[in-house]
């Protein structure tokens, strides 16, 4: 092992002000291995990566890379030394082409001055071919699906002759098929002797492709295990100190004759083809499908966030006219976006301000906002939903993903929304907070709220839904009751292309 160790990080300390982000953390990586870095959000995984790549300066400790002690001052230095990162958040220039993005900073030049797109286009095609993928190198990155953009990011990392490639939650926005492609790429890289650091929350992936796992908790090193010799429960225990079960639901928990609170008829837009469905009171209706199947688009149409071409929406049996989000909110619909930071919360504002955002009118007396009452109400939600924050005044950007999500839930509860659309409710949320969100959702439907849950995680869909709608290419392909639904069945319908025969 020692001979082919390419990276060793020892006793890494890092503090931000008074907050200790890393304490005596160690990490070791061998050539040609896939090494998972696991831990709940806030465990320090990202900070460790940032210390390695020179985004943050460590306070103390040693980093030995390729036999020498190193200290990268800038990301560029670590990149030049052969350490690439595929970030969770995409860093793409949307208006540049695929090839221009991949070769940014390393353009081919004619006469040492003029850029030569022809050459980088050729190189791009070759790179994608290496991994059996087709791409139009001249396509603007902004026109690609998120999944494809992620592939471009990965190819970019690979193209830098990296010795170490760090994947930070690479599959968060990929379809099952794309994940398979990714795993092939990783296998391929591994065979070439590239060392891979793989950060993910998804157990199935960890067990599928990693060789070893380093677990962190609260900025500290917890332990290192061989993937083959561990179990999911052991890992979760190491991460959180408690066991979380992910058992599928057995039967619907909602009465078949429960009243229909939301009825969507023949909804159409440029991304959605003729979608109709009913949502019952107290029901969790799961929306499954691959990335780009049109699930988020349906949600946004119902919520009035995008204009619809045609279709009708009935709420409690009455036709509703929803032209903008404001209308939907007035009808008691709340939307929890898949992209919290961009669409769900105001990161620069505090907990109370976020909680009362849609219902501010309730707290105005003689035109003046009653901040005291707002804080009292927020305190109540902080207690009820167990939101971890030191005060109602804390800015949302300082909360973890799970707690941010709870603030969004509080926001819609405060507005008495009866229909909640959860779009990827647990994306980027750690295991512990995940099960809290689940039990919160179950409590909500018990209280008579109705939930539409969009999720790309099949385990989540099967665990939470009373009924499942499977979408593909903008169409509703199949409606499954929870009794008959299995991962295989859902996948079957989710990949039912238009021309293919859909076995009903």
């Amino acid at each position, binding site marked *: 092992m020692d001979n082919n160790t390419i990276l060793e990080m020892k006793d890494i300390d890092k503090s931000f002000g008074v907050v200790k982000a890393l304490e005596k953390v160690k990490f070791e990586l061998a050539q040609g291995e896939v090494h998972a870095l696991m831990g709940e959000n806030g465990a320090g995984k990202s900070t460790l990566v940032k210390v390695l790549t020179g985004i943050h300066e460590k306070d103390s400790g040693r980093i030995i890379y390729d036999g020498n002690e190193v200290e990268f001052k800038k990301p560029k230095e670590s990149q030049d030394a052969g350490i690439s990162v595929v970030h969770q958040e995409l860093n793409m220039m949307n208006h540049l082409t695929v090839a221009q993005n991949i070769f940014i900073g390393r353009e081919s030049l004619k006469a040492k001055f003029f850029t030569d797109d022809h050459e980088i286009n050729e190189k791009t095609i070759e790179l994608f071919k290496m991994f059996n993928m087709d791409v139009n190198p001249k396509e603007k990155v902004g026109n690609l699906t998120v999944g494809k953009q992620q592939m471009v990011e990965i190819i970019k990392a690979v193209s830098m002759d990296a010795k170490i490639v760090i994947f930070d939650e690479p599959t968060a926005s990929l379809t099952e098929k794309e994940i398979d492609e990714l795993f092939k790429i990783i296998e391929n890289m591994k065979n070439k002797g590239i060392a891979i650091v793989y950060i993910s929350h998804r157990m199935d992936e960890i067990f599928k492709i990693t060789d070893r796992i380093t677990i962190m908790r609260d900025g500290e090193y917890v332990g290192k295990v061989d993937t083959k010799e561990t179990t999911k429960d052991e890992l979760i225990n190491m991460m959180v100190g408690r066991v979380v079960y992910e058992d599928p639901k057995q039967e619907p928990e909602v009465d078949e004759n429960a009243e229909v609170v939301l009825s969507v008829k023949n909804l159409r837009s440029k991304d959605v083809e003729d979608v109709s469905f009913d949502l019952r009171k107290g029901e969790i209706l799961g929306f499954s499908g691959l990335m780009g199947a049109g699930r988020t688009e349906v949600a946004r149409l119902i919520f009035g966030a995008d204009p619809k071409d045609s279709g009708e929406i009935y709420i409690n049996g009455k036709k509703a006219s929803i032209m903008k989000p404001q209308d939907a909110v007035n009808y008691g619909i709340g939307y929890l976006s898949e992209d919290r930071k961009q669409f*769900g919360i*105001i990161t*620069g504002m505090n907990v109370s301000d976020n909680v009362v*955002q849609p219902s*501010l*009118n309730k707290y105005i007396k003689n*035109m*003046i*906002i009653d901040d005291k009452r707002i804080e009292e109400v927020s305190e109540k939600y902080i207690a009820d939903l167990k939101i971890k924050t030191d005060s109602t005044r804390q800015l949302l950007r300082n909360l973890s993903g799970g707690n941010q999500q709870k603030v969004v839930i509080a926001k819609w509860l405060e507005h008495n929304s009866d229909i909640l659309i959860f779009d990827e409710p647990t994306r980027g949320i750690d295991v512990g907070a995940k099960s809290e969100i689940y039990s919160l959702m179950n409590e909500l439907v018990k209280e008579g709220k109705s939930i539409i849950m969009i999720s790309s995680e099949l385990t989540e869909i099967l665990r939470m839904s009373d009924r499942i709608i499977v979408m593909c290419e903008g169409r509703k392909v199949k409606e499954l009751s929870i009794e008959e639904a299995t991962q295989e069945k859902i996948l079957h319908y989710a990949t039912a292309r238009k021309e293919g025969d859909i076995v009903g």
Partner: protein
Amino acid sequence: MGDNNGLKQTMGNVVGSQKFIAVLALVAIYIFFAISSESFRSTDTLVSIFDASYYIGFLAIGVTFVIITGGIDLSIGTVMMCSAIIGGVLFQMGMPMWLTLIMIIAIGGTFGLLNGLLVARFKLPPFIATLGTMMIARGLGSIISNVQSVTFPLRGAEEGFYKSIFRLDNNFPIGIFVLILFAVLAAIVLNKTKVGRYIFSIGSNREATRLSGVDVNKWETIAYVISGLFAGIAGIAYAATYTTILPGEGAGFELDAIAGVVIGGTSLSGGIGSIFGTVIGVFIMSVLKVGLPYIDLQPHYQLFITGIVLIIAVYLDVRRRNKL
């Protein structure tokens, strides 16, 4: 105990904030001039500093609202002049002074509404939309006044009462209290009402605000209307201070006002800002403008030095923010 902590935290925030640095800078600059020049230490000088602060102060307070939404209003300088000129023409045509003053504010508000609609409804970039209205206002003032200067009544003349809004007959600079009154009102609107809360929210994240069911177009428009109304008020202050208004002027004042806003710690990228900071920022510039001649630097040095102050202010702000 808890209160004590809260206080400590508040103090920490104040000390760390640009507002506090701006106050320190203002005091330091004032003391510097006071030490350097004996004649600077007179009430006349103080009154000149106030005089120089009124119209820029109103402009700056108004545009603070727009800047917090993440937008910009370049039209305020010429809108101020245009409102004042049209007001002057109306007055010369026989409109009573009280109505003239209301008209001046209304004209400013109308330009603000135009800006707001262009930006919020028709989705023009704020820079371009208000650049357009900046030119329109400048042209309109000249058209309506027929490229003639207009003169408001002098102190003591019939209908000359408006002058006393900013300086009493015994020379007492009452205007400073008017400015403070409007600043306090603006601060209440910004921090304690729905308008203000949504303006901050839009500046922090427009789309998330919209998806919370907030009518972002309406509130964004209102921010520009407020900016326009304050440009109108600034027009009154300008007329009261300088009496004669020349057509085609006013361009450049918006930049002084925006500089004041930024020196006061309001972020040009939106979501962060305060009226208090803006007022301090404006006074820093006025003290420089009035004080420099006392140390034998001609007024044009003011531009040069204000530029340096602006860059230092923004640099400190950027550095502070990156630390977070």
